[in-house]
């Protein structure tokens, strides 16, 4: 089996697992994440609580399932939003007149002048009582798109002086035709790969933000906030609270990375 196929299959498997766990898991494991069992606080895994309990006595596995759903419900739409915005912006800059490209790229530089987490933290701080999930989707989408936009624009620039584009223009093709028939097709590998990476980016950004207490707001939990609360009581070494959410974020990022590799090389081959 080629390395590419291995990547693809591993990525699909891992990604599928994360999705199934987060969206379907609670139908199999029906314990309520927010019920408090004071008698069983901070208990290591056993038959009653497969992933133990936190310091309030909440069921660890139920919290993990709820946290997964909350994380993906925000991160996935945000990635879609970022993809659409970035693609449209990049195409506009790449195919539009030169002056438009200059303005759009200057604007992009403003966003890219800062690490995206710094911007995220700043915007999250603006909301006085924390951000609602809808706002989080908008914010994450808004923060992660510039990278893709620049990439698309640069790809379009690299491709648009190629001979087959020139030949199509000579035959009378307009910008929309060029984008639809030629450019999207040749930049598809880049789009697929980076679209997949975007999902990883938004999951990471949301987890980081929640980890810092600025993302998904309590009482709702997410992977990032679960990690943070485990870390708050790290002196008690609650490994059953620390490892699972971290491993799930890791699995999501790894899946995105593997899928990107596998799919990308596949599309490129033709």
């Amino acid at each position: 089996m080629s390395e590419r196929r291995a990547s693809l299959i591993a990525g699909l498997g891992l990604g599928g697992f994360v999705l199934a766990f987060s969206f379907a898991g609670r139908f199999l494991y029906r314990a309520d994440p927010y019920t408090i069992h004071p008698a069983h606080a901070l208990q290591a895994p056993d038959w009653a609580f497969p992933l133990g309990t936190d310091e309030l006595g909440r069921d660890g596995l139920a919290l993990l399932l709820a946290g997964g759903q909350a994380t993906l419900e925000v991160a996935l739409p945000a990635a879609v939003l970022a993809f659409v915005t970035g693609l449209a912006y990049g195409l506009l800059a790449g195919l539009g007149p030169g002056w438009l490209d200059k303005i759009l790229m200057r604007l992009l530089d403003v966003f890219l002048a800062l690490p995206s987490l710094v911007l995220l933290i700043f915007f999250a701080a603006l909301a006085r009582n924390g951000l609602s999930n809808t706002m989080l989707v908008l914010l994450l989408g808004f923060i992660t798109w510039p990278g893709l936009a620049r990439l698309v624009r640069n790809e379009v620039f690299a491709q648009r002086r190629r001979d087959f584009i020139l030949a199509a223009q000579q035959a009378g093709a307009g910008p929309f035709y060029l984008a639809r028939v030629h450019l999207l097709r040749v930049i598809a590998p880049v789009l697929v790969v980076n679209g997949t990476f975007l999902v990883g980016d938004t999951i990471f950004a949301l987890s980081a933000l929640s980890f810092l207490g600025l993302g998904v707001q309590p009482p709702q939990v997410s992977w990032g906030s679960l990690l943070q609360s485990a870390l708050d009581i790290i002196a008690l070494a609650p490994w059953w609270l620390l490892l699972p959410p971290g491993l799930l974020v890791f699995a999501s990022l790894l899946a995105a990375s593997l899928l990107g590799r596998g799919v990308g090389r596949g599309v490129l081959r033709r």
Partner: protein
Amino acid sequence: MTPVLEMRDVTVTLPRGGRDVAVLEHFNLTIAAGEMLALVGESGSGKSVAALSILRLLPAGARITGEILLGGEVVTEARLRQLRGGVAGMVFQDPLAALNPTRTVGSQIGEAWRVHKGGSRAAAWAKAVALLAEVGIPEAAARAKNFPHQFSGGMRQRVMIAMALACEPKLLIADEPTTGLDPVIARQILGLIARLRREMNLAVLFVTHDLSVVAEQADAVHVLYAGRSVEWGRAADFFAQPRHPYGEALRGAVAWLGQGRLANIPGQLPEPEARPPGCRFAPRCAYVQAACEKAYPPPVEAGTIVACLYPLRDVPRAAAVVVESVAKTFAPLLEVRNLSVRYGKAVVVADVSLRIGQGECLGVVGESGSGKSTLGRAILQMLPYAGEVVLQGQALTARHRARRQIQVVFQDPRESLNPGLRIGEVIAEPLRLAGVARGAALAQAEALLGDVGLSAALMDLYPGGVSGGQAQRVAIARALAGGPALLVLDEPTSALDVSTQALLLNLLRELARKRGLSCLLISHDLAVVSFLADRIAVLREGRIIEAGATAALLAGPREDYTRQLIEAAPRLQL
């Protein structure tokens, strides 16, 4: 006297798709001191593999069997570093890539010296400067401090030669050293090699795909086809009468100056995995017999030595073709008035005026940097220019619909077809853009595919699945699809192999005759231009310095520069 290079029954395999595939088989070669041998073949023939195997410079995974002797000594892994550069020096194609971009040429030449002779850096530098002067680089002491990108293509190849000869080896292996250089420059490089060969009594193994390059200078010729030797012997014998059908076809396919008709070699080179069991050339051979397909033919002496059961006898040759000198007159089609193109401050095309008549083919020749491609693109309205381009009485602009009346065929067929579109869709594109319905457009595309000599089975393939020559014919079909008034052919054959090039040139000539096509043919190759063009314009530094009917221009050039171009063009003395 021991030969400088001897290769005995050498077979080379390379890993391909998980298996070892033989790319060169049972290869024998001998070169004596002072001798120049031309190793000739098209891409995929194994000629570069043969050259690289001598110093074991093949990519990882290659396996060499047989015996290779350099100066009478068997090449072994242990002695390799002494032999490389010490006994045999190497020069490659594309000197820009072959030189380290971030080190001065002086240090790179000096390195070649120090690796073998040791000594101080200062001594190596002095040696490098002396070598640069020796290969004809002016102001060598100053130029040694420059980086490869600061030299012109020809000068870079001189640097490569200086480096290869730094330790006075007995053998120079030159792998396509003139490919990609302008004809005049290529001729100078050949002259330099000839001089050094005389002065140093150097043996030269000259690898090339282009017979015309070596016709004048080689002592011996060795022709490879699909990994096997097909014909070898003295160059004079070979050029007088090749004895192998492939040798004959190869010689006939080269566009020599004044050539009337090019020999077509039908079909394609077989892939290494799918080679016929008998004579490799049998499937494409015009003289094929049943016996040819059974076993590889043993070499026989027949003037040259050929691996052929039925060596050619002397073929009666047609009298030298006279290029049509009847002056034709054409109705006016395109007129270019005072066209200039600038990039920043540089004037690339300066005040060019020309006319092309209905049904006429105008050739524009010039070396790289002469502005010939820019001129073509300006006429196509692909870039901003000053001046006027008038087609059928209409002045064109980039936004003008009449722009579609001029279509284009580019140099690199791979670049000019979208890898993600099927060939049928590619050809139908201009029709679809002109508003023809999908079904009708595809039907027309299929007909066009037939016109350029390709089968309809290609319609559903992607460009990645066809050969370079086929892709270029697809590009021609696309250019013809909209029924253009004028075709701009920008170096249409430069990226192709000799036999494919012949096929394409014949096709273009036939199309021009049948369809009354008007075209602007841009090329650096005077022989190619003279084969197709009714009239030739010589472009130099953005200006047309001379123009005239093809025969007249070739017979009596006015300008010195034109004379140089004609001298550098391949010609066959019989």
